[in-house]
């Protein structure tokens, strides 16, 4: 339970009438802190950023390296400081887990601002295709309006009437939101996604030529897999193999069933090749994570 989350008196009782003062107070205190931080001398700025980064990463590193209390059950009293800290770390996971996403969410405003700037500039300067920017803005505002209205109806205003799985209980607002989301947005998603099939078709047609060893290998292995995915073809091939082995399904020739060949390529070449690739990428991510965490990476975040 979240109730045990920090068990340090850091909680706020939701029925407490003073809770807004506490929360607002903390926000203000944070704001004051940020203001003081902005007065930091230029020379210390880099250290401040590195410190924030380091502390944020420290939790997960400690969570990994700190010994976990053995067979710890809810309501147990830690035997010593090490166990106590281990329990503290475990209890902190749900809290720390959401931090990155919440912070990213606060940044979305910057992204939307960028989008608006691009299109408002277009409209105000009557640049080419400015009419389309108007369409963009209209869609944005419409979906925002109905999206929030729908949410308020569902969660507060008509909480007891509306059933999300039963469209017959919906009001016109929910229906409009449904048309915008399910009818337009979702379908456009799927349409864009399925466009790729066409691109794959033309890319394969153009690129899969027996020009070099590399492109030939790529092509042959792709062909084997594609053939093996065609059940009917596999069936015909395998039937032929069965016939060649005199109707004996456990004959040596059964190793040449199409699905067996494709499986062989997959387990003996594809799996180790990808695994090697992943080992390398994993090391790269680990090393880069380390550099970012310790503030060693220049030119990126901590210039």
């Amino acid at each position, binding site marked *: 339970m979240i109730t045990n989350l920090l068990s340090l008196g850091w909680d706020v009782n939701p029925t407490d009438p003073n809770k807004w003062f506490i929360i607002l107070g903390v926000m203000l205190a944070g704001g004051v802190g940020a203001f003081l931080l902005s007065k930091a001398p230029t020379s210390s700025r880099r250290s401040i950023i590195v410190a924030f980064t380091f502390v944020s990463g420290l939790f*997960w590193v400690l969570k990994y390296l700190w010994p976990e209390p053995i067979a710890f059950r809810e309501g147990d009293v830690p035997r010593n400081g090490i166990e106590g800290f281990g329990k503290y770390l475990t209890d902190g996971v749900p809290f720390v887990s*959401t931090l990155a996403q919440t912070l990213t969410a606060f940044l979305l405003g910057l992204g939307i601002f960028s989008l608006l700037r691009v299109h408002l500039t277009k409209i105000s300067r009557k640049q080419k295709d400015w009419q389309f920017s108007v369409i963009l803005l209209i869609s944005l505002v419409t979906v925002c309006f109905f*999206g929030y209205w729908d949410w308020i109806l569902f969660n507060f205003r008509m909480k007891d009437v509306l059933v999300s799985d039963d469209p017959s209980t919906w009001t016109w*607002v929910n229906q409009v939101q449904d048309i915008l989301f399910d009818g337009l947005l979702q379908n456009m998603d799927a349409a864009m996604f399925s466009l790729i099939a066409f691109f794959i078709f033309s890319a394969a047609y153009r690129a899969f030529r027996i020009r070099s060893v590399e492109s030939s290998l790529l092509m042959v292995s792709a062909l084997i897999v594609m053939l093996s995915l065609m059940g009917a073809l596999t069936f015909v091939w395998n039937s032929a193999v069965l016939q060649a082995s005199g109707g004996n399904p456990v004959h040596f020739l059964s190793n040449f069933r199409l699905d067996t060949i494709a499986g062989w390529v997959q387990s003996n070449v594809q799996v180790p090749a990808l695994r090697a690739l992943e080992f390398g990428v*994993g090391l790269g991510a680990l090393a880069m994570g380390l550099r*970012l965490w310790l503030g060693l990476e220049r030119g990126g975040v901590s210039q």
Partner: protein
Amino acid sequence: MSSFPVLLVDQIKVLLGALCIVGLYSVLYKENKIYRFFEHMFLGLAAGYSLVALWKDTLYEQWWLPMTGRLTETGTVDAPGYWLFALLLPIGLMAYTVFSKRHNWMSRIPIGMILGLWSGQQVQIYWNKFGPQILNSIKPIVPTGTDGFFQQSAYDFVNGAVVTKPDASLILSRIYMSEVINNMIFLVTLLSALAYFLFSIDLRGKAATGFNKLGRWMLMIGFGAIFGSTVMARFALVIDRIGFVIVDTFEAFTRGPG
């Protein structure tokens, strides 16, 4: 509040869906005004929806409720709030200092925190992800089954029926020469591909460059197999979409109410 007939809403949705598909597919011919129309509508809807989901799915669920606490329907405490969450607001807002020439360095604080949180996890997950794979890559390369080159079948074929041999499990446990060769191929593929990614070693001599090249070839075979498998995925989607335009649209307008 009033509402539209459910069937009508469904029909509108299907019709709009089909229109979207046709509109966006038109780019396959060439970039045109219809595509541009749908593209911009798409971007607008997506941005608007992100703004809704921002509060509804992320901030409200992950930040507001944990901060202020939850009540049950009867008004008792379900989960208390934690005031520490309130600090995230000023930290997140520091990102908006990008508009200030003097304080824009502060926008790197939330960015640094996001990266720090990500980095810390890398240390945590490395072994969980790769440990079992390293173990699984370790395969024996000396045969233990000596009564043949290939693994004997664990089955007999008697009078047109497949019969399991009594010692089937023992046969399956032995390693035959054929499997050893497979394991060797596995090992060579793995090692040559890994060696391909050694950047700090200067490769001299035919053997070293050859091994390196082999690694690249093996990677290409692996990529080919991915390509083949992905083709299935993409075609499955386009089949589904064409099915949607033809079948679902048709059904939506032929089916009666309810």
